[in-house]
């Protein structure tokens, strides 16, 4: 086991495309680090550089205090799980598991012991004599995991290992992955484009975009304190609602105005983020998580309200998603455009519900998640309570979260 450190790592492809741009990341010993981002953000490239399958153009990569930039993959003592499993089709499950150990001249009894152990851990014992073609997708996936486990490497690298499984199996495997990591405690770098996987698996999550690191933090911090518009929109499902709002001072506090809605900014927010005061009298981008709404009639918090008309309601049993429009133009920021493009690209994602609402045109589409006992119906007006302590404020031009510690530090 070891920590993995990337320092100013670049990947430039011939032709000048910069897949990874000055990536700095320290993955602690035993940590489960998830790299997440839309397709083409460089997360897989970063992982493949750690594996040694891709050359590092610039910067240094060390695994366990040893710089490994020029080491071939086999000398890095890492194991990798591939998206399409990459099992050797002509070998049985047992041979697949043992292959790496055999090449390393591990003694036979030791190979047998480890294969047996991994097979038991993953429930693969009945299939040891089968070939991959005779296995289901989930079983193949487990063999791929097993091949990594038997090696007992310093680190596991996983490249979207669950993305080829169907939804139900994916949830199951997600849980067993979590368990496995608890049990083995091996440093793991995990690449995914699915933010739910990222949030549920990661000790910490690194959000990448266009080869640049946006934010690394615990899932909770990413959700509660996104550093910019992109992270805010990418993390969370349904996605955060954005609207351009005017921020004006109002005696002790401040108010936000957009379309025909007004929301108060609590005094404690202003205390927490003094930088907000610089934006008095200007427009900012306001972000509201769907989960910070509720039906006003049953809301616990009631620091602000919005009167809206529900366009669509999605009853999920545990909650109701209310989709409505706000009479303000949709956000025009490059981050928002990138997110929309990503949502459109991933057909299998359940988030991004309102993005395709046909009647939206030049209005902003909002999603609110309300109590399942709410009596809201499509076409009916509803009063929504907003937890104004949880509002997110972004600079209209840079897209950075106003008053976020990382951004304050960067400015100073």
């Amino acid at each position: 086991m070891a920590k993995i450190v990337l320092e100013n790592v670049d990947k430039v492809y011939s032709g000048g495309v910069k897949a990874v741009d000055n990536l700095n990341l320290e993955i602690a010993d035993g940590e489960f680090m998830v790299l997440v981002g839309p397709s083409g953000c460089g997360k897989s490239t970063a992982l493949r550089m750690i594996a040694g399958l891709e050359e590092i153009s610039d910067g240094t990569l060390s695994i366990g205090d040893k710089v490994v930039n020029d080491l071939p993959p086999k000398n890095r003592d890492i194991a990798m799980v591939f998206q399409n499993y990459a099992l050797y089709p002509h070998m049985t499950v047992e041979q697949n598991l043992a292959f790496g150990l055999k090449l390393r001249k591990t003694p036979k009894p030791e190979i047998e012991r480890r294969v047996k152990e991994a097979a038991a851990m993953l429930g693969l014992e009945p299939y040891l004599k089968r070939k991959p073609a005779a296995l289901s997708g989930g079983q193949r996936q487990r063999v791929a995991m097993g091949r990594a486990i038997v090696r007992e490497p310093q680190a596991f690298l996983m490249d979207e290992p669950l993305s080829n499984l169907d939804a139900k199996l994916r949830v199951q495997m997600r849980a067993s992955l979590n368990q496995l990591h608890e049990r083995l405690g091996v440093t793991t770098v995990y690449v995914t484009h699915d933010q739910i996987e990222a949030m549920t698996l990661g000790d910490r999550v690194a959000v990448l975009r266009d080869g640049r690191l946006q934010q690394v933090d615990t899932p909770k911090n990413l959700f509660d304190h996104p550093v910019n518009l992109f992270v805010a929109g990418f993390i969370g499902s349904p996605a955060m609602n954005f609207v351009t709002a005017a921020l004006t001072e109002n005696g002790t506090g401040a108010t936000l105005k957009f379309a025909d809605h007004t929301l108060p900014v609590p005094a404690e927010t202003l205390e927490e983020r003094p930088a907000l005061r610089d934006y008095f009298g200007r427009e900012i981008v306001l972000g509201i998580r769907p989960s910070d709404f509720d039906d006003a009639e049953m809301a616990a918090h009631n620091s602000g309200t919005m009167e809206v008309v529900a366009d669509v309601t999605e009853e999920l049993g545990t909650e109701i998603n209310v989709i409505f429009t706000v009479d303000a133009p949709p956000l025009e920021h490059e981050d928002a455009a990138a997110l929309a493009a990503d949502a459109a690209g991933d057909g299998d994602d359940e988030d991004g519900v309102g993005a395709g609402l046909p009647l939206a045109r030049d209005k902003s589409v909002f999603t609110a998640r309300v109590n399942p006992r709410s009596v809201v119906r499509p076409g009916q007006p509803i009063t929504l309570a907003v937890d104004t302590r949880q509002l997110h404020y972004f600079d209209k031009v840079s897209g950075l979260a106003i008053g976020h510690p990382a951004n304050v530090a960067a400015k100073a």
Partner: protein
Amino acid sequence: MSDPTPRPTSAAARVRRRLSGRVGSAVAIVIALLWTMPTFGLLISSFRPEQQIKTTGWWTFFTDPQVTLQNYADVLFGTSSQGQLASYFINSIVISLPSTVFVVGIAALAAYALAWMDFPGRDWLFLGIFALQIVPLQMALVPLLSIFSQGLVVGGVQVLPAWEFQGALEFTNVWVAHTIFGLPLGIFLLHNFISALPRSLFEAARVDGAGHGVIFRRVVTPLIVPALVSLGIFQFLWVWNDLLVALIFAGGNADVAPLTVRLAEMAGTRGNEWQRLTAGAFVSIVVPLLVFFSLQRYFVRGLLAGSVKG
């Protein structure tokens, strides 16, 4: 959702359906029968007595069946003027087997390197090898023969000495010639095959600790067996049936000349005793037939395997 009735989507699908229809099958059977007829006639003739062959057509066999094995006995074990094909038969095997093994082995290694090893000029090299298929083999005969007999001289410097092989080593010339002529197509076929293997398989093997040698031996080779076998069949049949290369590189010497050379001689000098030619032709056909039928399973799979994923 949009259209409940599946319509023929591509031209290829339509062609396939039409070809496998009843009319298509009937036409195919007729063509196959027509094609086999002369061979069939030859087979019948080879079992007929000399006097019969020379006076009547092979179809009279059905009204007046007379069977003899005399032709085969003459041709295989008779006096030298009658053929003595047995020793040439062995020569043919000694020429064909190594020429096939060399081509399959070298082509597999080259195709792996061209597909999965990064080195400068790789694409140009592959393009060059591909282009070699356009060059007719006849163009290379004289230069190759002169290299064998006089060695290679570049600008007055002797780069390669002349090969003066004696005895059994005389086969070397034919082996080398056949290998050279067989390689471009072999490399091209196997390259298509090997480069279609998923990249992640190679990456998994590298992470598992394998170098190129191990990857080639333990991952690639087992997976391309159908392609290797079908290339082997192609090459074997080509070498077995070849007359031109053998005539030039081994023709002058009865110790190394293969069946085809001998058959050609018999056709030339014994045209009036063609009852033996019928038997000779069948002696030479037997091996290709055996190869084809015993490995036919691989043959079909190998032809399809490159194009169909799975």
